[in-house]
């Protein structure tokens, strides 16, 4: 398809694409039937000399049963199948956050007009310490490990959008939202803001670098060295969604 979505780079994005494909086919068939019925009616049931419309109110029990039957069949065949499928995927994948997973890379995302800030805990695994790594508009993650984000916003509502990962989640002032995903393969992926957040909404773009595990560890080590030099003990950016070191 010439105008398709960016190539799916995530572990679970195929479930989103699958839902879209299923819906496209199912609704496409329904719509094709409608168009055929409409076409036959318009071609053959047009006004002609001497033609009299078939007189019916369509209000007999039999008529009701037919229309209700078709509607319920459509609901069961399309909506219910889709809902069952999606509820399952939400429970087992998208809303099954890697809370106890030691392999998960935890990130604190701070949104503001008009940039993203990403904070990683560093080697000690705690946020709000001297070895925190804070990056602006650039998220560095290892491929093949779950990435677990907790987001908040300093000013207005933003929405972190990863088109190649088929997902987005709002960043809301005064609240914490969360999102997890996993990169299947290394690469450079665009991220952006999906929620209108002011005049420069369109500029709130960033990038995610998914690198092999070893490369990421090397990057993290270098970044931690830099971070220690520039540590500011009074950050105001975080809500404390992760376990913050107090004081």
């Amino acid at each position, binding site marked *: 398809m010439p*105008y*398709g979505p*960016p190539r799916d780079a995530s572990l679970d994005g195929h*479930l*989103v694409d699958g*839902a*879209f494909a299923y*819906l496209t086919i199912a609704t496409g068939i329904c719509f094709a039937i409608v*168009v055929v*019925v*409409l076409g036959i*009616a*318009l071609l053959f*049931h*047009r*006004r002609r000399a001497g033609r*009299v*419309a*078939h*007189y*019916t*109110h*369509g*209000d007999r029990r039999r*008529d*009701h049963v037919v229309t209700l039957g078709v*509607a319920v069949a459509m*609901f069961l065949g399309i*909506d219910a199948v*889709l809902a069952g*499928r*999606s509820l399952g995927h939400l429970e087992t994948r*998208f*809303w099954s956050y890697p809370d106890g997973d030691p392999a998960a890379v935890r990130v604190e995302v701070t949104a503001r007009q008009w940039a993203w800030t990403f904070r990683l805990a560093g080697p000690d695994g705690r946020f709000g310490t001297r070895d925190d790594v804070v990056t602006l508009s650039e998220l560095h993650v290892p491929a093949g490990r779950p990435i677990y984000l907790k987001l*908040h*916003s*300093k*000013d207005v*509502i933003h*929405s972190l*959008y990863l088109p190649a990962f*088929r*997902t*987005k989640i709002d960043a*809301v*002032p*005064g*609240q914490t*939202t969360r999102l997890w995903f996993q990169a299947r393969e290394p690469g450079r992926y*665009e991220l*952006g803001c*999906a929620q*209108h*957040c*002011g*005049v*420069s*909404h*369109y500029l709130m773009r960033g990038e995610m670098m998914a690198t092999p595990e070893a490369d990421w560890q090397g990057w993290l080590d270098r970044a931690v060295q830099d971070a220690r030099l520039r540590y500011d003990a009074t950050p105001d*950016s975080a809500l404390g969604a992760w376990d913050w070191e107090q004081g």
Partner: protein
Amino acid sequence: METASDNPASGASPSVLFSRDHKVIAKQFLALGLAFLAVGGFMAMLIRWQMAHPAAPVPLVGRALFGASGGIISPAAYTSLFTMHGTIMIFFAVTPILIGAFGNFCIPLMIGARDMVFPTLNMLSVWTMAAATGTLTASFFVPLGAPQAGWTAYATLSTAVGTPGLGQTLWVVAIYLNGASSVMGAINYITTIIRERAPGMTWLRLPLTVWGFLMTSILNALFVPVLAAGMVLLFFDRVFGTQFFVAGSTIKGGGDPILYQHLFWLFGHPEVYILILPAWGIVSDLLAFFARKPAYGYRVTVGAFVAVTALSSLVYGHHMFTTGMSPLLGESFMVLTMIISVPAVLLFLNWLGTLWRGSIHLDTPMLYCLGLVFTFGVGGLTGLFLADIVADMYLHDTYFVVGHFHLIMAAAVLLAIFAGLTFWFPKMFGRMMNEPLGKLHFWLTIVSLNVVFGGQLVIGYAGMQRRLYDPSVYEFLRPLLPLNQLISRAAFVLGAAQLIFVGNFCWSLLRGRRAPENPWQVGTLEWSIPSPPPHHNFDAIPVVHHGPHELGNPLVLARLGRDWLGQTEAAELAWPARTAAEDAAGGGVETADTAGAPAAPEGTT
């Protein structure tokens, strides 16, 4: 204030500006709505220019409108444009035309009443709407300019944190006044439909148009106050420094921005049905009239209207799937949203049933209705994609949403407006509209709008977010430029095609063929009186004997030599005389509008 001209019985023509005549008020709403439709449409053209040629000077009007930036639409101007385009189209174009104009004009005429129950309230409703439009227009001319928080005005962007300045405050006031006008109209419509139906106009003999307006009015009366409450809180946040919605570390606030979304969408999703229900009603009637058949499954259609109305407030959370709402809430809203597709499918099947084996007359109003059936089909089905949380994670806030709701709220609703205008124009103004011009307008419109909104679905599937000033900031959106340019060209054709309608409207108003009493040969009450109707509508309050779509009845054809029967025509005309006892029991009309009974025994023809 009671003057001779306001006396319904006098028959004198009322004053134009301070009239309490529902027909004059309908025309006031129509004029106001059409004017703002033009303004909102023009803004859409500017938005499409920016999408096709980002940061290129706008031809023709650029210097005049955006002189400070050399004819280029600035990011701030673009933000105001999409904010005001949405606001104007929904609250100040479609609402006054569809509900204000058609509701006012059709309800009393179709139920056999001389006017609304509360004519003065009706006049106040149009004045309040005028005040709202004045307030909204003023927001363009204040320091810091027009509002910029989007038509949904999400907090905290819409508070002083995100959008300082008087413009956004005026927007809040304008929406509040607009809502007050809607509620006044809704109270009037509900009371009129309940109290003022002509003798014999039972609930199941109401034209479906009236059913649509009744359901819309109930939703307006219930849910516009919720929006008004949100606007009052937002106003307090902006002006008095309260913190209902303010939160975050920029301003240390203890409010809840998500609360605003709950208030907004608890109104906002019913609003979709507020606008589509009258369209459904009009189309359900017109398909029957022009297929020369009774509306198929009338009682199921009415049931579908009622079901959609009842469910409409229970599905609003699907606008908020990405706010991090509780999983249980999200899943409930997803399932409820899918359930509402059942009544929508029933309605759609009944439309097809009405057309099937009809004798379809392709007059201009019918073309618009058929166009609506097509676009509503695409628009409705794409709604399913957004009801599904998994697909919505990707599609939310993309152009897929834009394409979906434009197919319904722009394409389908506007096609219903065109259908209604061409259909009732003879009754409103006493002249016929030009058919060839109408058909030309229809074909240009239907082709170009499907390219525009269908193209937006594709763009959204490719991942393009809404409300981007310049999509080329994102690498993955750059290949979409040719498609955006195609959409924009189609949009310009769509915009230009509307000039044909304006021309047809104005020309027909002055020079159109004089309309007969009943040009479409249908049986609802408004076609039993002169075009245009006298001030008091009906010389004598009609007595109703049939449902609204008594078309193609073989018995009537045999007895009267025509395929339609007026709602007022006595049953004795068409059926063997009944005994007085049967008539007293209400049995005399059973054949015409009761399910299960064929028109007449086979032998009587």
